[in-house]
């Protein structure tokens, strides 16, 4: 038993706070990731680029979920709903109104953000367990909402909507798949940069204070209602944008794309990647896109069994997820080098 665990029961499960690494070292990791991401444009092609684009898009979605659930403690099991809103909004904007994709994606992010604010209002009153329950029910209801006759004029009902294929950036020598991937990557870089900046400062500390002890946070003059609502809004913005990116990548949306299990998949990705970590979202996105690709050959049920087993294992053994594992490895390497 270490001293930390007798101070606060949460301490052993909390990931260590991101150390304030200053100067050039702090930029090394992001720069490396961006370079790797850019290189992937030319190393892969076709279907692999589609997978890569999906990984990056899901990483943004999981980042949104991490922000809300990991940093702010509002467990949402219904983030698939935001993906659906983002995806359908993009599809409708592009196919019905002819909005170009590079404008449609940020717009759908804004639309989803508004919905996020609306959802946040009742969510403020719900404690964690009941919020999880309510969002669980939301996730189950989403496909029905998309199929419903009232909106099927817009959403295409059961058949779904196709998106117009985007024009490739031939000036840069990229084909359609590469263009989609590069655009997704650019959006991701902006999104991650924004979130990292947000979380490193006052806002991040306020969010975490609200998660750990809302009453204490309130007494310290942190506007709990504002930050919780804002967290929901930003989270919805990120996830909605990811939904739009996903829709562009597959050029098709339908109610079945946003079935109940998608919300659960996002949560699994967030947990396995690293619940209270920005980079964890990348690991999570890779996990939820790549693992089923291989596991599906075993059986249709195998990916779910593996998701479940991994989630339980991570919570038992490695609560800070893959990102925590990497961080521990880096820390150990650093102390050994001294």
């Amino acid at each position: 038993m270490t001293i930390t665990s007798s101070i606060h029961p949460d301490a052993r499960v909390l990931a260590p706070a991101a150390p304030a690494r200053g100067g050039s070292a702090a930029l090394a990791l992001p720069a490396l990731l961006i370079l790797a991401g850019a290189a992937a444009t030319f190393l892969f092609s076709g279907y692999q680029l589609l997978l890569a684009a999906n990984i990056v898009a899901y990483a943004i979605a999981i980042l949104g979920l991490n922000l809300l659930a990991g940093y702010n403690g509002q467990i949402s099991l219904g983030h698939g709903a935001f993906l659906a809103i983002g995806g359908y909004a993009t599809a409708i904007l592009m196919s019905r109104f002819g909005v170009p994709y590079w404008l449609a994606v940020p717009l759908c992010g804004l639309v989803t953000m508004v919905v996020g604010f609306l959802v946040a209002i009742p969510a403020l009153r719900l404690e964690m367990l009941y919020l999880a329950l309510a969002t669980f029910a939301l996730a189950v209801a989403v496909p029905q909402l998309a199929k419903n006759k009232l909106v099927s004029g817009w959403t295409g009902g059961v058949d779904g909507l196709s998106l117009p294929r985007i024009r490739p950036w031939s000036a840069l020598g990229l084909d359609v798949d590469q263009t989609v991937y590069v655009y997704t990557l650019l959006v991701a870089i902006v999104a991650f940069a924004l979130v990292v900046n947000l979380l490193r400062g006052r806002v991040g500390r306020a969010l975490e204070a609200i998660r750990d002890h809302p009453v204490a946070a309130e007494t310290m003059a942190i506007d709990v209602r504002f930050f919780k609502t804002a967290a929901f809004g930003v989270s919805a913005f990120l996830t909605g944008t990811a939904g739009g990116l996903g829709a562009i990548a597959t050029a098709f949306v339908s109610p079945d794309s946003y079935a109940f299990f998608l919300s659960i998949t996002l949560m699994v990705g967030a947990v396995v990647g690293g619940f209270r970590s920005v980079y964890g979202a990348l690991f999570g996105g890779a996990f939820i896109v790549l693992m089923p690709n291989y596991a599906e050959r075993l059986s249709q049920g195998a990916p779910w069994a593996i998701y479940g087993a991994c989630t339980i294992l991570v919570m038992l053994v490695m609560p800070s997820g893959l990102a925590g594992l990497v961080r521990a490895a880096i820390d150990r390497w650093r102390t050994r080098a001294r």
Partner: protein
Amino acid sequence: MNEFIHQLSTGLVLGCVYASLALALVMIHQTTGLVNFAQGEMAMASTYLAWTLVAHGMPYWPAFALTVALSFVAGMGIERVLIRRFDGAPAHAVIIVMIGLMILIDGLVGWIFGYDVRTVDSPFEKTAWLAAGPLSAHEAGIGLVTLLLMALVFAFFRFTRLGLAMRAAALTPLSSRLVGINVGLMLALGWGIAAAIGAVSGMLTAPIVYLDPNMMLNVIIYAFAGALLGGITNPWGAVVGGLAIGVAENLAGAYLVGTDLKLVFVLAVIVAVLTIRPQGLFGRRLVTRV
């Protein structure tokens, strides 16, 4: 009018199924303070077990009894091995673990049995005399079994020493330990009983919703709604809530929103209950000190 009575009776029967699953949810909430997100999948796995036994030649009611017993043991095992480890952990941890458990069970059953939808015969077909008025034999059978289940659970908690011990362990664990009650065992028993009740619920539902790994996904949402509506701290409330949701869902589906918006309707009910009166109709308001 006939149509309305038919909808009403079907609603009550479905409500019995939701009520029994809601009872399982309340059982776990009463003993461990958690809402078991995996309850539906556990019930589904029990139903597959029963189906396998019957497919291998065992007659229905012995298979039923054996499944209930095995589910009881499995429920105890899950609590002891998995849930117990998260005793002092932050609130989100055990929720995530239950979600993980839910998809693990779903995936395993899908892996072993495949995702084909199978039809299951009702055990009440041979007792056609059960059919009463607008209810078919199976529907009447569901009602009877649910009533029996509720009576058994009530009698257990009210009139047996073990039931008393479980209630004490849930109310004041520390004092119960001082009096010599094995609180850990009581928690495990709570999960075991809930798993057994869930198994009954699943086996009753299978002839209606057909057997496939996702059969309980919708049912669990209705059960949640019923438990929340009735009050998650009150077993009677859960039953009343389940019946109410069954009737409301059916009537709303027939006359208000159409069958394809039933889940949205139930979602609205859940959100309304949680925002307007979180303790439900018959529950107690839980106040925590800071």
